[in-house]
């Protein structure tokens, strides 16, 4: 039997006056799983986190942990950890005082507090920082102290609310890897809130996509990326080349009349779509091939033609922006190839292989 989820949210709702902050959110988190709540700011993810922590009340729904209903339980009795965006390190205590706070609240003896704090500081690579004052720490050090503080009491569930939000990109990326490896080393179950998709990809076992107070889609990062459930998710994940089309034929392969021309992909049709329906087509920008018109393709397949508008240099890769049919498409290719093959104004042949095409139901009006 598969292990049952450690945290279960069932139809949790919360509104402020007329507006819903959270609407019918149901969510399961497995033991040891690292879940990222991803969504634009103001989408309700922080509120959801605060409800789980007991800092906010919900209007309806149930939350249970290890099968026990958390309703009415005070935040300090839940045994959860929480890392705030502003970290909330206690300014009147040193690093030791901060990291040991939760342990002292458990009534742990001084000797054991000291051992545990040292162990935690080792874990976050701040072994010598015990007696530092909070205001002497750099941004990244504060982040790690806050992480050590929330991990020290061995929380049954750790929640992190954009903990790296205030850092610059370089530091954030190096800490992301560190945070993931620390959390995995301990094996703590964690919910991590972020609005940064790169961060979610770097950290998560499961991404839960939240928008407008509702869960839009959840799953492993790769699955989300390969099969976004809505146009909004697709765009939020950074996918481009989203065009309109109509299903013409569907058998072993599916044929689509799109604004870029005729496309095909492997069948069967995804649920909810049938022949004759309008759909959204996502074309993977890294799988489109572009070549000068007279190039001899090694393989057969559907070929479209277009005109190159411009090339954008993006370091190791370049983007070729072109007009294909009535659509703008982008192809991302290694910079070396782009320079040699085509330039602006060229007429090109465009090849969209079947595996590059993903179909979505059209956005609701």
């Amino acid at each position, binding site marked *: 039997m598969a292990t049952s989820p450690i945290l279960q949210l069932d139809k949790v709702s919360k509104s402020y006056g007329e507006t819903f902050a959270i609407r019918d959110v149901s969510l399961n988190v497995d033991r040891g799983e690292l879940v990222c709540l991803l969504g634009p700011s103001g989408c309700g993810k922080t509120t959801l986190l605060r409800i789980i*922590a007991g*800092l906010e009340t919900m209007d309806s729904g149930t939350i249970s942990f290890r099968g026990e209903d958390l309703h009415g339980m*005070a*935040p*300090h*009795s*839940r*045994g*959860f*950890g*929480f890392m*705030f965006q*502003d970290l*909330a390190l*206690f*300014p*009147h205590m040193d690093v030791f005082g901060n990291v040991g*706070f*939760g342990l002292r*609240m*458990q009534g742990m003896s001084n000797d054991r507090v000291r051992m545990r704090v040292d162990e935690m500081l080792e874990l976050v690579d701040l072994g010598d920082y015990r007696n530092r004052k909070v205001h002497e720490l750099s941004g990244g050090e504060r982040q790690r102290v806050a992480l050590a*503080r*929330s991990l020290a*009491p061995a929380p049954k569930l750790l929640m992190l609310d954009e903990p790296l939000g205030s850092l610059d990109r370089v530091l954030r990326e190096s800490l992301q890897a560190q945070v993931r490896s620390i959390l995995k080393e301990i094996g703590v179950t964690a919910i991590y809130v972020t609005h940064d998709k790169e961060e979610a990809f770097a950290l998560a076992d499961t991404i839960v996509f939240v928008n407008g107070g509702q869960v839009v889609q959840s799953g492993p990062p790769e699955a989300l990326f390969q099969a976004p459930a809505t146009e909004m998710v697709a765009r939020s994940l950074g996918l481009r080349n989203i065009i309109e089309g109509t299903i013409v034929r569907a058998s072993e392969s599916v044929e689509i009349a799109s604004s870029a021309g005729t496309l095909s992909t492997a069948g069967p049709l995804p649920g909810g779509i049938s022949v004759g329906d309008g759909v959204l087509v996502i074309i993977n920008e890294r799988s489109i091939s572009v070549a000068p018109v007279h190039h001899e393709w090694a393989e057969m397949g559907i070929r479209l033609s277009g005109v190159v508008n411009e090339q954008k240099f993006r370091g190791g890769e370049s983007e070729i922006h072109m007009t294909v049919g009535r659509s703008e498409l982008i192809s991302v290719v290694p910079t070396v190839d782009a320079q040699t093959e085509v330039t602006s104004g060229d007429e090109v042949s465009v090849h969209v292989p079947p595996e590059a095409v993903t179909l979505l139901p059209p956005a609701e009006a």
Partner: protein
Amino acid sequence: MTASRLLVVGPISFIAVFFLYPLVAILAKSFGGGAVGLGPFQVLLGDTYYLGRIWFTIWQAAFSTFLTLVLGLPVAYLFARHEFPGKSLLKALTTLPFIMPTIVVAMGFVALLGSGGLVNTGLSGVFGDNAPQVRIANTLTIIFLAHAFYNYSIVVRIVSAYWANLSPQFEESSAMLGAGRVQTFLHVTLPLLLPAIWSSAILVYIFSFTSFGVVMILGGSQFATMEVAIYELTVKLFRLDIAGALAIVQIVFTYIFMLIYTRIQARSAVPVTLVHREAIAKRKRSIRDTLFVIGIISILLIVLSPLLALVERAISTNDGYSLVHFSALFSNDSGSYFYLSPLHVIWNSIRFAFMSMVIAMLVGTAAAYVIVRPGKRSSILDSLFMLPLVVSAVTLGFGFLVAFNRPPVDLRGSWLILVIAHSLVAYPFVIRTLLPVLRGMPPHLKESAALLGASPLRVFIHVELPLIARALVVGATFAFAVSMGEFGASLLLVRSEFTTIPVAIFRLLGQPGAANLGQALAMSTLLMAVVALGFVVIERFRYRDIGGF
């Protein structure tokens, strides 16, 4: 729930009973008990003497404010834009006059510029008996000087704190755009500073407007402000109805000024980006700057000189320096006029100050928590709780006399009335010191502690209390010092067996003889020492300049 209910009900009912009710009693009195209608007001406005007092109060406060700004702004510049050795000590000393009881300030001026004061005896010592003398005792000049001395630290504190946080990049941008030093000051710096200057000026105006102790001791009744007139109407003429009418007129004036003040504060809080002070270091040094610094330091010394003169006069006798005036205070067989020994007076002041401090802390802390609770009424509550600052001490004492003068609550003979009056004057200071700390507390700090397993009580003990402890100490010290120095209300309310130090000093001054003057000086010096000690505590624990009063 009941605990938080108590938090709200406690301070509000304290204000209602001991502040609002006495005000209503004054109002009732001034309308002549209902039968005569506007009678007392008609008397007041038909009498050229009282109209003259009102007009005098208005213009003397204006001139005092002007003088205070002239004295205070250069010092504010010095502290905002210059680094020099001994700056923090000098800064602390600058604030000393403000926290000094008015009676000490007045006595300082008596000691410095009075007929037997330091300056005149010095002149005699140098030029002989026919030496020119500075004769400004009992003149308007000495009142203006004392007001400026007393209030200039308000200007220095508020303006320099604002100035220090003003990014020098504004001035640098102006220079890069071709403006000279003077142009930059007139067109960039001054307009940016204006809100701070205005708000300090209005505070100074309010304090000069309701000035009591300084005028009583340095001016005499020929220069009576409205405040002094209220006192004399109550104590000497027994015209409580006209006193009430005058008090109402004064409250209306001060309330309007306070409204303007809060308006300006609210407006100035928004637009300018303030940079943290450490980011601003004084960039260049020139000879002009150095001269400027020396000039300002000499102003400071002049401003501090009354306090130094007070000490000097207190220890000087005909046979050189000695502590004879002080030892006279501590001997019970003192030949002074009243039967209460000075030791007893000192003990009175200390115990009343302690009790007032406790009450002010309880009311002030509860009120501060009520004010910071989220909700729309926060600013209304804030101004309600700050009202006692607007109403003068003499009016407050007068209100107590007319409100609590018959059974079941006849408090006139009790020391309790004194303690309550002192707490009312003191607790707004507790609120003012606590509010910035409570408002500045990072929002997630308490939640973090709770999530780490701390119960609400332990959150308060381990997180909140340590963070507000410094502000609590500062507030308590303020409350203690305010009570020690309170003069206006005490003079009206005190019974001879409960005489406090300021009242005793005033009474001693009213008696002829060098020994009485000597004792008054010695007592003022003691009071100054106690308050100065408190001030050291405040400076030690205070960690932000903005806020304060």
